C-alpha cells in the first residue's frame, strides 16, 4: 500500500480528520472555482477522495457544488444584483447546474482511488 493510499485510508476512517479534510477540500473547491470552472470538478474530486464511501462522496460532491454556487449567489447578492441574476432564466439555471454537476462528477473519483 502506497503512502498516499494509507493517508487516504486514515482520513476516510477517522471521523475528525475526514471532516477536516472535507472542509479543506470545500474551501479549495470554492477557491479554485474563482480561477477556472475546472475548480468545481477538482473540488468535487477532492471531497470525493476523502469521503468514506462512494455514495457519501457523491453527496459531498453535490454539496460542495451547492456550496460553491451559494458563495457565488451571496457575492451577487452583496452586489445588489440577486433578483436580476435570478431573472436570467436559462442562464441562471445553467449557473446553478454547472457547479453541482461538475462537482458531482468529480466526486466519482472516490470509486477510482
Amino acid at each position: 500500500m502506497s503512502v498516499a493510499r494509507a493517508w487516504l485510508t486514515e482520513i476516510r476512517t477517522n471521523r475528525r480528520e475526514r471532516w477536516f479534510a472535507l472542509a479543506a477540500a470545500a474551501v479549495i473547491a470554492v477557491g479554485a472555482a474563482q480561477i477556472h470552472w475546472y475548480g468545481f470538478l477538482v473540488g468535487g474530486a477532492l471531497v470525493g477522495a476523502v469521503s468514506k464511501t462512494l455514495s457519501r462522496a457523491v453527496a459531498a460532491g453535490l454539496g460542495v457544488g451547492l456550496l460553491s454556487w451559494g458563495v457565488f449567489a451571496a457575492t451577487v447578492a452583496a452586489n445588489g444584483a440577486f433578483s436580476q441574476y435570478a431573472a436570467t432564466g436559462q442562464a441562471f439555471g445553467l449557473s446553478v447546474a454547472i457547479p453541482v454537476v461538475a462537482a458531482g462528477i468529480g466526486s466519482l473519483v472516490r470509486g477510482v482511488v
Partner: protein
Amino acid sequence: MDTNTTRRALLAAVVGGAAAAGSLAPVRGYLDRFAPFTGRAWGDATDPTDRRVESPYGAADVRYDEYGTPHVSADRERALYFAVGYVQAADRLFQMDLQRRVMTGRLSEVVGEATVDSDEFHVRMDFAGGAEANLELLEGTETGRAVEAYAEGVNAHIERESLPVEFGLLDYEPDPWSPADTMLMESQIAWSLTGSFRTLERELIASELGPEAVAELYPARLDHDAPIIRDGTGGDRLAGRPVEPRGEFADADLLRWLSSFESPRGVGSNSWVVSGEFTASGRPLVANDPHLALSAPPVWYEMDLRTDDLDVRGVTFPGVPFVVIGENDAGAWGFTNSGADVIDFYTYETDDAGERYRYRGEWREFETDEQTIRVADGPDRTVTVRKTVHGPVIEREGREVGVAWTGHTATATSRAIRGYNRSDGIEEFLAATRRMDLPTQNVVYADREGNSLYYVTGRIPRRTIDGEQVRGTRVFDGSAGEAEWEGFEPFGVSSWEGFVPFEEKPHVVDPDYLGTANQRIADDPDHYIGEAYSSPYRGQRLYELLDRRAASDEPMDAEFMRRIQRDTYSKRAEQVVGDLVAAVEGREGLEAPVGTLRDWDCRMDRDSRGALVFSRWFDRFREEAFADAFERAGLGERYYPNDWVLATLPADSRWFGEGGREAAMVRALRAAVADLDDGATYGDHNTTAAITHPFDQSFLNYPAYATDGSAYTLNNFRAESAVGSSWRMVCPIARDAESVCILPGGNSGDYFSEHYDDQLRLWADGEYKPMGRDPGGEVDVRFDPSEGENR
C-alpha cells in the same frame, strides 16, 4: 478483469470524459459563459466599478445620484472627458459597441447570418468613411483633443473592468474605442434623423399608381394653419420648382431592402420656448421631448459635467462626450427634427462592364474598394463598394442608385455641440449653431438674460436645373450632373457654397412663444427645405394649448409645461370622430361602440375604452381605404399616405370604394370591434412591453407598464413601433427653479444595475425626476493623476 476493476474503469472514464468534454465546443462555450465566478456573463453581477482609477489627464471625481446619473467634475476639460468616457463605458459599453458594429457593417462578425443584409448596406454606404472625414476636420482642435481623451477613458474601462452581460452571451470582447468611433455615433444619429428613401418610394408609387395618385396622396404641403413659424402669408407659394417623380426608378425589391435601414417611421419630437413675458417667473421656459426609437437601454445617457469654466447637464448619445440636449449655467436648449431634405439620389449611364459611369460628357471610373463582411458560423462575404462624384452607390437586385447625403462629408457638428455646452448666452449659442452642419434640426434656446431663439440647424442643399432652384423630390440624372450640390465633397471637406446660407435658413429671435412638433416650418420659406413633415396634429395641439394659456390671465410655469408634455388629447380623433359617430349611429350591432365613441373625450388615456376603439377603428379605416389598391400594386403598408391625408379625403373619394367614406367607416368599425375583448381598455395594449433590448433575451427587456399617449398626441408613444418620448425635459430658466426630466427606462445599460429600469414606471406615469445637480457626498469613482500626466 474483475467487477471492481471494471467499475473503477467506468468511473474513471466518466470523470475523464467529463473533464475532456468541458474543453470541447459547445460545452466549453456554456461553461465559459455561465459558470459561477468565471462565467463571462456574470462579470457585472459580481464586480462593482473600481473606486479609484488612474487618469493620464489628471484628477476627476464622479458621484452618482439616486437615479444613477453621473456627476463628473474635474479641474481640466480633458481630465473631465477621460472620466466621461470611463463612466459611459461602465453604463453603456455594449450599446456603444453594437452601434459601432452596425454602422461599420461588422455585426455579422458576432451575430451571424441574420445581419448580413444590414452589414452590406452599411458597408456600401461607407459611414466609416464619413466618420474619418469628420475626424480629419477635428484634428488639432480642442474638441478633437476632448474626443481623444474620451476615447482613452472608454479604453481604460475596457482594460480594467468586467464586461457587460451581453458580451458574455455573444462570447466576444470589444475592440478598443477610437475617436473615429465617436464620429460614427454622430453619423448614426444623423442618419436616424435624416436618412430617408422617401424620394425612391415616391418614384415607385408613381410607377405603380400613377402620378395623379402621388399628387393626391402625397401633397407637397398639408393644408393646415399651424406651421412652426406662424407669421407667414399662408399662401401657396412653394420655394423651389416642383419636380415630380417620373416613375422611372421603380424597384420594389430594392426598396424593401433599403426600408430596413432608414429612420423609423414616426421619429419626431416636441419642443417649445416661451419668453419671460408670458411666464410667472418673468424668465423664459424651454421644454423638449424627442421621439426616437425606444429601447432597453434608452438611446440617451444623462450626465452632469463640471470644470472651472463648464457647468452643463443633460443627455447625450452613448459614445459622444458632450451634452447634446440640456442646460448649462447660461441657458437651455432642445431639438426636434426639421424634416429637411438632405439626401438625393442619382442614376447613371454606365458602360457594359459596369466599371465606368458617364458624367458631364466623359467616362469616369467608379471609385471601388473590396470589403469583406465577416460572418460568425458562416461564409464571409465580399462586397465591392463603389462611389461616384456624388457619393456611394447602392446596389441590389441588379439595380443601382447613387446617393448624396450631407453626412458623408466632414461636418463640424462636434465643435458645435461642445460650443453649446460652453456657451454663455445667445450670441455664443448662435455662433455654435452656425457650425452645426448636421443633422438638420429645429433648435430652441433661451438664456438667463431672457433671450430666446429658434433656428433650423444643419446644411440644407440647393438644387438647380437650368439655373432654377428645384425640390429634391425625384431621382436625378447623375450623368448629366443634374441638380447636384455645389460645394459638396463626399468623404472630404466641403466648402458648402451652394447650400442655403445660414442667415436665410428659417429662424426667429426672441419669439413670444414658439412650438415645434415636426410640422411644416413656415408657409413661405425662401428656400425649399423639405417635404417630410409630420402630420400637424401635435403641432396644432401644442399651439392650441400655448395660445389658450397666453390669452388667459394665468402665466405659464413649469407645471404647465409638464402638463403639455403629458397631454393625451388627440387632434386626429377630434378631426374624424364626429363624422364616424354620425356614420355609424343607428347601425345594427354597433350600439355599444357608438355609445363609447360618442361619450369619449378624445384623450388617449390608458383606462379609456374609447381610445382603444378609436385606435383600432382607425387602423381598419386606413386598410379599408388603401389595402386593396396598394396590395394590387405590390405596395405594403409602409407606402400608405399619412393619416391627415386620409382624414381629409373627400367623402366620395375613389379610395373609399363602394358607398364612399361613410360605408368605409362602418365596415372599419365592424371589423375593429370584432377583434376587441369585452372590457379591454387602451392601456391593455399600450404598454412598455414594446420597449425591448436588441438582443433576443427576454430578461433584458423592460417590464410591461400600461401608459398613455399615441403617435398623434403630445404625450407621444406608439407601442406598435416602439417609438416615443425618449427624454422629457422641462427647464425653467429662473435661477432658483429646478429643471426636471425623465428617461424611458434607466440611465444604466448594465442589466445588473439598480438603475437599469428605475425610471420606467415614472416615465409611464408621466412623472419626472430632478435634472442633474451634483448630490454631493462621497465620491464614487476618483480619478487620480497617473505618472506622466499633464498631457
